[in-house]
């Protein structure tokens, strides 16, 4: 029975590689560089976990039709992550609250994590890349 219990974040095996993305999707290309790195790691059989921290949660906002093209393509890359086996996505609960985005629809694989969960992620993984 215990083996059928769905994994909670505290119980999941810590990721080998964690990419922390803290930039909004506009104003710089850092958010895009983090996703490019995630896709590259997946291509090298090292699919990373992604942690959207601080302003990084703004990358998960639904794409507007009229939005700048780089923002639209960012959304497309986000949507494609499961195809690359990137299925561990963590989202900063405090940042969602700060921006009033508690009710925003999140990617299917996303898990909202509080500060304790974030600390566990950062301490548990083998390698961190911070964007």
């Amino acid at each position: 029975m215990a083996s059928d219990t769905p994994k909670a974040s505290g119980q999941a095996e810590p990721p080998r590689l964690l990419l922390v993305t803290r930039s909004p999707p506009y104003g710089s290309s850092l958010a895009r560089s983090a996703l490019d790195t995630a896709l590259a790691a997946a291509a090298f059989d090292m699919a990373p976990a992604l942690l959207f921290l601080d302003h990084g949660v703004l990358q998960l906002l639904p794409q507007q039709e009229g939005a700048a093209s780089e923002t639209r393509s960012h959304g497309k890359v986000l949507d494609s992550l499961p195809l690359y086996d990137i299925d561990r996505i963590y989202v900063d609960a405090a940042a969602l609250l700060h921006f009033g985005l508690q009710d925003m629809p999140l990617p299917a694989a996303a898990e909202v994590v509080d500060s304790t969960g974030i600390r566990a992620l950062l301490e548990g993984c083998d390698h961190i890349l911070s964007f």
Partner: protein
Amino acid sequence: MNYALLVLAPPGSASRAALGFARAACARGHQLERVFFLDRGVENGMGTAVAPQGERDLPAQWAQLASEQGVELVLCISSAIRRGLLDATEAQRHEKVGPTVAPGFTIGGLGLLVETCTDCERLLTFGEGC
């Protein structure tokens, strides 16, 4: 300790901090395998940049450290070519003048960054906020 660095910050205080860390690590006998420059970090390898009077020539200082300590300096290829940093091959391929990448730097794919993650014991990121 076997270190590697990821530099995301353009020339400025954060990239100078990365250079300072790299020097200190080497001076203390640590191994520094590779510095990977990504996003605006690639601007640290711009070979045609002319440092303003009184400021240090960052690409030359990176190159000096690299040749003395055997550190590999890699610019992310997609970040580099969109910003006009081309090695001889890319310059020819795109029919541009070149090479514009500073001596001592090479251009490579993100796969090298992933490889760096697994190979080194500790990889430090130097971003815009340092």
